[in-house]
């Protein structure tokens, strides 16, 4: 049963890969979407089964066969679904299917073979993501981990004729490698420590021991794992690939770089909640990194002009939120935010995608504006998404973000809370800056399109030719398939939060209680750590805590409103203010515009040295001298020896007979001596 969930997309991938170029678009695209829907259906069934079980016993396992068995290392190809992975598979398959459907319309201008290739990649990605989520042990998860990395490379570089796309793909791949390396090391450390790689086994083993004080093996392992997570989930220091990943098709950005893949890191930490919660050092680091990332990305997002880049940075900062939650031990809150974020970020991306689609590849907000009337569906859905992410009651973003902030505060990290609050402000501001620049005000098509826009245009080439008229004349709104996805997601972004309504305002935080067992150790030692989750549940009951929560809610709500108002004031009322600010602080502006020069820094400190080393050392010296030397040396040795041995081939019968006789004498002598 479980195996079917990743199997369906995989079959779709195989089919599309094998015969996709011969299939018409409708078939290949429909096939892919069907595969996703099927696996979504299966996931729903599975989750219902799961819900049927007792809360403490919620886990369904399926072992296909023993994958690796050597010594005491025994790894089965085992899928396990528990409350946590249940949420994940729903998110992945659900939002994944929506995005598939969306793509059938969005990618419609591609030729058949490209279209099929796109969908085969997309299906493959989904399959790997599901393996990652369902894997019951580290190696299996790592398979999915690597697989989604591969797929993101393939999809980011989908328009491989475009150099920037290729570079972005390679960047994503290589940066991820760094994280994966750390991830492998972490796995090894864990195996060295516990002798098993099964999540349950590790969890129960850890739960048996007291929380680590100081920096020990646990902290090391978890830290390594976390570095892996930063690679996959775009945190400092490995976040730089995500903004560039916007080179890929917009649905890809939505699916991979907002909804699912980037959340893998968060999921991984949640999956090993017990382990992490026993390594306070790492937890602190996670929290700090998360907060910093959130803030930094938010500031950058404030000034970017590429609509998708802004979204990308907002993704980074939202992920920062999630890590913050994880770091402060509020795993439930983190996953909650992951879940809600999946909805509204996918919605935002798809909305931006429909905008770009309508404008034939225009991505620069400075060339947009006033699209409210032309693209009503897009506008309203986009607006909903923006409100949700800004965290306005009662949309989904509000609950999750607020829970995170509350937990942070409760755990006593006042500073981190402040940063979080500030980031919330920034979020509201740049999101609505985006909204206002894109949809309000007068249209600014006279402004010259950016080079990037032109490249994109070339990539979409036939897009322009297919709708004959250029930007500026009448635009058409999202076609039905896209509209469907947008609307569903909009509903999701509104309602998704309602399963996590805190007790303070009369909710029951179903999600929290649902997830609680997943973050405790195995049923046996469940109470040891389950206390934390349970504690949250019952302590929420007492009043002052509720009061605190309520005040904090108010604070964050006001923050959101203030941010929105500020954005409105600056980018709708007083356009000059923005320009003045730019003129006032040119250094700051340039710094932010160039993303703190991080890319340049990496390029100078890492890329160039490696390049030089491999050119001079590996190529010029090792390859040319050592390897080629060895090869040529062997050849010349053979040549020389052959030159000597050739003299034995005299062709003279007597010479041969002589050698024969030597052998006779020697052998006979040997047997005589014995």
């Amino acid at each position, binding site marked *: 049963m479980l195996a079917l969930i990743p199997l369906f997309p995989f079959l779709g991938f195989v089919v599309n890969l094998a015969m996709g170029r011969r299939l018409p678009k409708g078939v290949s695209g429909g096939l892919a979407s069907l595969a996703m829907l099927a696996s979504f259906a299966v996931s729903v069934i599975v989750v219902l089964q799961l819900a049927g079980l007792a809360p403490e016993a919620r886990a369904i396992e399926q072992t296909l066969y023993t994958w690796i068995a050597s010594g005491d290392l025994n790894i089965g190809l085992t899928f396990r679904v528990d409350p946590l992975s249940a949420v994940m598979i729903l998110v992945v398959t659900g939002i994944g299917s929506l995005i598939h459907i969306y793509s059938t319309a969005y990618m419609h201008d591609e030729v058949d073979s490209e279209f099929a290739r796109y969908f085969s990649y997309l299906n493959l990605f989904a399959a790997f993501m599901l393996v990652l989520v369902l894997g019951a042990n580290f190696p299996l998860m790592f398979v999915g981990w690597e697989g989604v990395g591969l797929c993101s490379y393939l999809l980011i570089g989908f328009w491989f004729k475009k150099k920037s796309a290729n570079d972005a793909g390679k960047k994503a791949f290589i940066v991820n490698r760094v994280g994966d390396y750390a991830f492998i090391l972490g796995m090894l450390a864990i195996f060295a420590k516990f002798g098993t790689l099964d999540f349950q086994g590790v969890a129960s083993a850890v739960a048996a021991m007291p929380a680590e004080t100081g920096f020990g093996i646990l902290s090391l392992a978890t830290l390594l794992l976390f570095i892996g997570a930063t690679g996959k989930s775009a945190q400092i220091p490995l976040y730089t690939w995500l903004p560039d990943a916007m080179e890929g098709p917009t649905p890809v950005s939505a699916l991979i770089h907002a909804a699912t893949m980037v959340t893998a890191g968060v999921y991984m930490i949640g999956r090993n909640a017990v382990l992490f919660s026993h390594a306070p050092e790492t937890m602190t680091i996670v929290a700090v990194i998360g907060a910093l990332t959130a803030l930094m990305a938010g500031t950058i997002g404030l000034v970017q002009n590429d609509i998708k880049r802004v979204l990308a940075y907002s993704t980074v900062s939202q992920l920062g939120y999630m890590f913050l939650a994880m770091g402060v031990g509020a795993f439930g809150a983190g996953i909650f935010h992951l879940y809600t974020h999946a909805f509204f970020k996918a919605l935002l991306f798809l909305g931006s995608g429909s905008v770009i689609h309508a404008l034939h590849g225009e991505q620069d907000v400075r060339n947009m504006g006033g699209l409210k009337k032309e693209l009503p569906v897009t506008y309203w859905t986009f607006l909903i998404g923006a409100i949700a992410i800004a965290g306005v009651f009662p949309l989904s973003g509000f609950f999750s973000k607020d829970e995170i902030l509350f937990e942070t505060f409760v755990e006593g990290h006042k500073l981190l809370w402040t940063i979080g609050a500030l980031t919330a402000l920034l979020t509201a501001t740049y999101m609505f800056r985006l909204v206002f620049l894109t949809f309000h005000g007068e249209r600014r098509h006279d402004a010259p399109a950016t080079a990037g826009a032109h490249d994109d245009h070339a990539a979409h080439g036939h897009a322009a030719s297919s709708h004959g008229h250029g930007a500026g004349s009448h635009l058409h709104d999202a076609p039905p398939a896209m509209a469907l996805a947008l609307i569903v997601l909009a509903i999701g972004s509104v309602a998704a939060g309602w399963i996590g309504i805190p007790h303070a305002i009369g909710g029951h935080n179903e999600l929290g209680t649902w997830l609680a067992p997943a973050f405790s150790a195995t049923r046996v030692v469940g109470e040891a750590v389950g206390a934390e989750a349970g504690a949250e549940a019952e302590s929420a009951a007492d009043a002052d805590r509720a009061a605190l929560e309520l005040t904090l809610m108010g604070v964050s709500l006001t923050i959101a409103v203030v941010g929105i108002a500020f954005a409105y004031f600056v980018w709708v009322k007083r356009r000059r203010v923005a320009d003045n600010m730019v003129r006032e602080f040119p250094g700051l502006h340039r710094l932010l515009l160039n993303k703190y020069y991080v890319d340049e820094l990496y390029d100078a400190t890492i890329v160039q040295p490696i390049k030089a080393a491999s050119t001079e050392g590996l190529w010029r010296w090792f390859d040319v001298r050592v390897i080629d030397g060895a090869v040529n040396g062997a050849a010349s040795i053979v040549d020389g020896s052959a030159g000597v041995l050739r003299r034995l081939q*005299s062709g*003279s019968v*007597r*010479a041969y007979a*002589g050698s024969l*006789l*030597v052998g*006779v*004498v020697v052998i*006979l*002598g040997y047997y*005589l001596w014995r």
Partner: protein
Amino acid sequence: MPETFVFYAFSALAIGASTLVIGQRNPMYSVMLLIASFGALSGLYIQLDAPFVAVAQIIIYAGAIMVLFLFVVMLLNAPREDAAEYDRSHPFAHPNIGRFGALLATLLIVQLAWALSKVVEIEAPVASRSDAASVSSVVEMGRVLFTRHTFAFEATSVLILVAMVGAVVLARREGPEQ
């Protein structure tokens, strides 16, 4: 005693004939002398209670193989050995190599002598069933040949076939008719 005398006579004949075979330049004589030596050897076989082998020796060697040699000698009209002309070019012309060869030969002889000295003088057959009849019976020979050595027997048949084809292919005159 007569058999000793016969033995020495045959041995002397075989050795002398063989020596002469390699001792002179006319291949025709070599062939004839070799036949003589084979005859002597078959005499020795008879002394060893192997009459069948003795006769087969005559039939196969003297009767067939040697006729073949004779035929070839006559066909090529047996040119005398042209000793000198290649010797300068030959690698063995070098004296050191000649000395080495001589050393090798002496070594071989010494080893053979040594080996023979190691052979205890077996006066009588060691096996239990050593009567001449059992050893010389053709029936027994055939039985063993076709039971224990069947595979070798078949293998030799294949070998002969291959040799026949090979000989035909090699000796066929590739002329204009191909």
